[in-house]
C-alpha cells in the first residue's frame, strides 16, 4: 500500500514510516501540516493516509478538520486518524458523512503491530476501525433501563468488537469461538436492540454506533 503520513513529531513520523516499510508498505510522503496533507493527497492519491490529530500551528484538532476536508474533496479517500487520546465527539464527526474507510485509533495501538496493520488494511479496504476506548465511552453512556443491559456478557463483547469495525471472522478469532457462533450472537444483538439486520462491514458499524450514541 502507498501511505501518506501526516505527523509533525519527527520521532513519531519516522517510527511510523519504519513500521510501515517493515510491513512492506510504501510511504509516499510525510506531511507535517494540514495544508501539506491536502497537497500530498492531491499529489499521491495514497491508498490510505495516517493522520495525527494535533498539528501546527495551534496543535488542537487540525488533523480531524483536515481529514474531514480531505473526505469532502475525495469521498473515497481512506483515512486513519491517530491520537494520544480519543474523544467520542471526534469519532462522531469523522463518521458523520457516512462513507466507509475511516479509522480512529489511539497511538498506543501502533505497538501491537499486527493489529495495527490489520486495522490499516481494513480502513484502506473501505472498512472501519474504531478504538475500543471510543466504544467504551459509548457503552458506558447509557441509562439504567437501557436495552444494552439485556445483552449477555458475550453479546456485549461482540457488540463492542462490531462497533470497532471488526468482521465476524475477526471477532471469532479474537474470542476464540467459531464464526457460526459469532453469527448467532450478532443476530441476537440485532433482535434485542431492535436494529434492522445488516450485513457485515461499515454499514453495520454505523448502525451500531449511531444506535449507541443516540440513546
Amino acid at each position, binding site marked *: 500500500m502507498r501511505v501518506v503520513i501526516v505527523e509533525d513529531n519527527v520521532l513519531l513520523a519516522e517510527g511510523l514510516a519504519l513500521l510501515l516499510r517493515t510491513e512492506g508498505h510504501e510511504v509516499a510522503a510525510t506531511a507535517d501540516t494540514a495544508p501539506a496533507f491536502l497537497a500530498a493527497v492531491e499529489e499521491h492519491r495514497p491508498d490510505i493516509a495516517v493522520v495525527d490529530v494535533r498539528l501546527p500551528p495551534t496543535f*488542537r484538532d487540525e488533523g480531524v478538520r483536515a481529514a474531514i476536508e480531505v473526505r469532502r474533496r475525495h469521498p473515497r479517500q481512506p483515512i486513519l486518524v491517530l491520537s494520544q487520546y480519543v474523544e*467520542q*465527539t471526534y469519532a*462522531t464527526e469523522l463518521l458523520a458523512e457516512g462513507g466507509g474507510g475511516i479509522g480512529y485509533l489511539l497511538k498506543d495501538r501502533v*505497538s501491537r503491530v499486527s493489529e495495527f496493520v490489520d486495522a490499516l488494511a481494513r480502513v484502506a479496504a473501505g472498512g472501519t476501525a474504531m478504538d475500543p476506548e471510543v466504544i467504551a*465511552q459509548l457503552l*458506558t*453512556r447509557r*441509562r*439504567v433501563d437501557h436495552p444494552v443491559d439485556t445483552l449477555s456478557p458475550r453479546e456485549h463483547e461482540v457488540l463492542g468488537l462490531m462497533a470497532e469495525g471488526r468482521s465476524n471472522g475477526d471477532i471469532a478469532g479474537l474470542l476464540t469461538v467459531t464464526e457460526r457462533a459469532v453469527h448467532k450472537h450478532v443476530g441476537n444483538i440485532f433482535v434485542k436492540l431492535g436494529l434492522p439486520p445488516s450485513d457485515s462491514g461499515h454499514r453495520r458499524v454505523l448502525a451500531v454506533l449511531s444506535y449507541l450514541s443516540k440513546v
Partner: protein
Amino acid sequence: MQATWLTRPGEGGNDSCGTAPGSNRTSLHDTRRRNGTNVRTAAFGQAPIDSRETGTELDRLARVSGVRRRLGRAVRATGRLLLGLLLVPVCVFGSVVFVLAFLSSATFVGLIILPYVVRLNRWIAGRGRKVAAGWLGEPVVAEYAPIRGGILARARIVLGDPMTWRDAGWMASHIVIGVIMAALGLSVWAALGFDLSVPIWWWAPLPEHSIYLVGFALDSWPRVLVTIPLHFLAVATAGSYVLPLLATADARLTRAMLATPERVRLAERVVELTETRTAALDAHGAELRRIERDLHDGAQARLVSIAMRLGVAERILAADPDKAAELIAEARLSTEETMTELRDIIRGMYPPILADRGLPGAVAALAARCPVPVAATVDGVDRLPAAVEAAAYFVVAEALTNVARHSAATSATVNATVHVHGDEASLTLRVSDDGRGGADEASGSGLAGIRRRVAAFDGRTELSSPPGGPTTLTVELPCG
C-alpha cells in the same frame, strides 16, 4: 459578544446635566452618540449644547434654562456652605470635649467617658457626611468599629479605631475650613447685595465721595449706571461658578477625611483574597505533589522496567531468542500501560478536549458522554484563562457524574454564561436536573470537591436540591 458587554453599568443612561461634579463621572469629557445626535454634556449643570442645532429660539431657551439652573445651583451651594457653618460651633464643642476626654482617659473615669464622647463625635461627623453627601449626590459611608465589651475593651476599641482620629481631625479642621468656605461664599452674596443697595446709599446722609467700588469712587449717576450693573454681572457670573466650586471642594475634603469605604472594603478584600489565595496555593501544591507521585511511581518506574527488559533482551538475543522475544513482548505491554497511565494523568491536569475545542466543545463532549440526556448551552464564552476553563470543566464533569449516579433524572441542562461587570468578568455555570433532589454535600458526592475547587478561584457555589427535586447547582467563577 453581546451588546451589553460594551456598556458598563451607570454609563448608559446618565443623561442628567445636573450630574454632581463630585461624582466620578466626569461628564466634561463625555461625548457620546445618543439617538444619532452628538451631544456634549458640560460640567456644572449647563444646558446640553447641541453642536448641530442652530435654531436661535432653541438656543435662547437653552440659555435661559441654563441661567436658571446655574442660579439654582449657586443657591444650593450656598445652602450647603451655611449648613457647614452651622456645624462649626458643634465641631468646636466636639473637639474640646474630645480633647478633654482624651486627656482624662489616663484616669478611670476618663476611660468610662471616652466611648460616649467618641459616640458624640461620630454623630457630629455623621452630620458632616450628610452635608457632603447631599451635595455630592452619593453617600459618604464610614465604617466604625462597633463599641462593645467591658470598660477597657470599649476604650481600646475607640482608641484603636482609625475613624476616631479621622473624625477628630475633621472636626478640628472644619472649624477653620467651614468658616473660611462660608465666608468666601457669603462674600459673593454680600457684593451683590451691595450693588443692589447702592441707590439707598446714594441718598444716605454720608460724606461726599464715600462710596467706592473696587477703589472707584461712585460720585455721579453715569458712573453708577455703568459700573454697578457691570460689577453685578461680573460677580454674579463668577459667583455662579465659584459657589458650586467651593461647595464641591468642601464636600470632597469632607469625604476624603471622613469616608473610609474604599479602604475598609479593600482591607476586607485583602483578607478574603489572602484566604482564597492560600487555599488556591494549597490546592495547587497538592495537585503538583499528586502529579509528581503519579509520574514517579507510575510512568517513570514503568519506563525503567521497560528499559531493563529491552537491555536484557538485547544481550541474550543471539543466545536465547525465545526468552528475548518474551522480554520484548513484556516491554511492549508495559509501554501500553504507561501510555494509558500518562493519558489519565494528562486528563487530570488539563483535559485535551479543552485545549482543542475550548469550553464550548469540552462541555458538549461531557454532555454527549453523560448517560442522562443533557441539553448544553454555552453563551458568549470565548477563550477564558486556562485555569478557569479547567475548573469549569471539572465542575461540569463532577456535576454530571452526580446527575448520572444519584439523581435518577430523565434529563439535565448545563448552562455556561460569561457576565461582564465593569472590568470584572465572571463565568456562571448552572447544572440542573429533574431528578429526585435531596443532594447532600456531606455524603461525599463530590460537591465538597466542587466547592473547594471553586473557592480556590474566589468563586461562589450554590446548591438547591429540595427532596423531590429539582436539583440546581450554580457556580460563579471570576475570570479576570
